[in-house]
């Protein structure tokens, strides 16, 4: 009897020993943006989207801007302005202004990795202009939570394998790896919508270059785990003319005879293999194998003949190889290495550990032997 009493007393009396957090009294930060207000000062400007739950009103969001030297300092300043306790456990997206990204974002990222209450699956993005502008876009008229909206937008694209997941986890891991650099999406306002504009290539924690969505495709081809999506193959008319489907009902129109035929193919499976073949100067062999299916053709191409595929494969291979080479040359120029050629090199280098600078020097001297093998496995439901 005595024992039962003691145990039940423990259960009831100790239940609220630890700190409590009542949902109604919290302001949940769902998105945070960082900007540099002006070049001279060392302070940063933070803009947050805060979600409140209140019993009277329906859930509402607030956007607050504050300045501070550190990210936690900004939070402290926010707390003084808000009637709710500001917590960052639900933080989904961190937006960096382009100017800030160009100067380096590591100092602000540190506050995320140090704080156990912030998840590792938080997305980092760069704003085309300033982060404040992006977050304040349509302030007041939004009926939904902006942070969650931005998060879903990115997640949807990541799931569709349009670009590699820009999570905090990925960023920190690639940033800390001297032989690999992070890439982050750049979001911008497009008239009345927010969308993915370009891809930002970073060197360490600084934004050094951008790739258009079209060029990104070639970059993704070299990356493991991503690299899906459709692309167009351009076929000069004279090359394909003999392979066109002769039908009685419609004839090839005159205008097509001058230009090119386009065929859109969808990437079903990609296999990439990057190998270091020679150490001095670093020579990499990049092999990409793509299995595709035809999605759309602008002209009646006869897929019954083997020769058609030979022509298509040749053209596709050449186009993709050129794209990849162009891409690598650009990466070498801006000294960013999102593919991780550096870590491949490091894996073979037994003597010492490379620093970022040493790798950049090697990377600029590296040569690449690119081979693409395309295979058409399906042509849709028609021939």
């Amino acid at each position, binding site marked *: 009897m005595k024992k039962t009493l003691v145990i039940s007393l423990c259960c009831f009396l*100790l239940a609220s*020993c*630890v*700190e409590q957090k009542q949902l109604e009294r919290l302001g949940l930060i769902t998105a945070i943006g960082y900007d540099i207000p002006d070049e001279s000062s060392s302070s940063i400007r933070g803009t947050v989207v805060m979600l409140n739950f209140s019993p009277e009103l329906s859930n509402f969001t607030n956007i607050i801007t504050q300045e501070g030297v550190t990210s936690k300092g900004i939070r402290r300043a926010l707390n003084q302005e808000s009637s709710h306790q500001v917590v960052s*456990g639900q933080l989904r997206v961190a937006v960096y202004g382009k100017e800030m990204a160009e100067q380096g974002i590591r100092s602000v990222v540190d506050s995320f990795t140090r704080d*156990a209450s912030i*998840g*590792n*699956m938080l997305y980092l993005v760069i704003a085309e202009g300033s982060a404040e502008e992006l977050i304040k876009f349509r302030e007041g008229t939004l009926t939904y939570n902006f942070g969650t909206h931005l998060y879903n937008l990115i997640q949807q694209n990541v799931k569709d394998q349009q670009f590699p997941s820009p999570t905090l*986890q990925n960023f*920190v*891991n*690639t940033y*800390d*790896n001297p032989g*690999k650099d992070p890439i982050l999406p750049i979001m911008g306002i497009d008239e009345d919508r927010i969308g993915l504009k370009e891809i930002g290539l970073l060197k360490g924690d600084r934004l050094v270059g951008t790739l258009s969505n079209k060029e990104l495709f070639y970059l993704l081809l070299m990356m493991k785990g991503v690299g899906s999506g459709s692309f167009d193959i351009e076929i000069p008319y004279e090359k394909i003319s003999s392979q066109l489907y002769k039908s009685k009902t419609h004839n090839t129109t005159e205008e097509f005879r001058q230009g090119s035929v386009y065929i859109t193919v969808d990437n079903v499976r990609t296999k990439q293999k990057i190998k270091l073949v020679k150490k001095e100067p670093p020579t990499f062999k990049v092999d990409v194998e793509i299995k595709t299916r035809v999605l759309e053709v602008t002209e009646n191409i006869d897929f019954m003949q083997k020769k058609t595929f030979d022509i298509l494969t040749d053209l596709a291979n050449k186009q993709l190889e050129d794209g990849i080479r162009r891409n690598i040359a650009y990466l070498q120029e801006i000294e960013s290495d999102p593919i*991780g050629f550096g*870590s*491949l090199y*490091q*894996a*073979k*280098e*037994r*003597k010492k*550990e490379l620093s970022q600078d040493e790798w950049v020097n090697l990377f600029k001297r590296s040569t690449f032997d690119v081979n693409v093998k395309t295979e058409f496995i399906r042509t849709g439901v028609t021939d």
Partner: protein
Amino acid sequence: MNTQPPAKRLWINAYMLMFIIHTAQTGVGLVGMPRVVFLESAQDAWISVLLGSLAAIPFAYIIYYTLKPLGRLDLYAVHDIIYGKWIGKLLNLLYVFYLSWVFFNIVMNYIEMIQAWVFNMLPTWLMFLLLASLAIYAVLGGLRVVTGVTILSFLLSTWLVFMIAVPIQYIDTTQYFPILNHSVKEIMMGTLKTSFTILGFEILFFVYPFVDDQKKTMRYVNIALIYTSIQITVVTIVCIGFFSDVSLEKTIWPVLSMFKIVRLPNLERFEFIAVSFWMLVILPNMALYLWAASRGVRHVFQISQKYAVWIIVTLCFIAQFFLSSRLMMNMITDKIATTGTYMSFLYPVIIFLLVRIHLYRKKGAKSNEKNTSN
């Protein structure tokens, strides 16, 4: 001196040793271990861990062969026989101090973990009392209850190991290469650093007299040791692939940070569950060490084990107020790791040799007696 073998109703089955040894080994050390070893031998850390954890097997054999010829005696009684009354007492007290220190360190490490991850405002003393009361409750029930706790904890917490399947998908295989480019010395240093995690098998010194079918002891101890080896080696391998060099060097609890990416549909942050569940992992640790330490106090001072438990916990509770920072915690953990390495790897060898010499002389004396009587 209290050297009576334990009563038969207190014995435990030999196969229980599987749970006792395994749970005594896995504890707070595991969550931080990959990083500590990585600091020594970088991407070859997993080799260090594998070597270190398998090294426990021969030393467990040494413990077994030390105790086997003496019947149902634990280390404290062995000390009395070998060194005589006063030096024996002193050494017993030293061992009690070591065991209580391990107990203390386990609790403090876990509290630090809770404060860093879940409740950062939680007062240390409160959490200490809560955890200690659980351990006391188990120990007061005797070894059979402690064994029950180990089995319960094992069954309830092994599933955590399988959660590692999620981070495996994010592994970057280039990070394992080049394999074996660290010197033997660096790998051995890593092996030494593994010791804090592997510690726990020395509990055999104290549990052995209670084992029912003593011939089967080593079979089950080996199973436990090998299972632990596999477990911690796999965890280390995954950690090396999952984190890049610098990140792993900076992360205090890599295993928990790895759990951060596990995301269930209705549970966004899995690591909080992992931290809370970790209490089940450390509970047998606390209970076993507290039990062994309190048996020592009972043996030396001839008092009831009940009082011994309260004395140890009270002293630890007082000590807890003097421990405040991460740096001090690190230092204490490092110290205990080195001490533990000597206690469970070097000391068994010494005591083994001493017992052999003692037995040899006793045998000699006996045959002498026979000769003279003839």
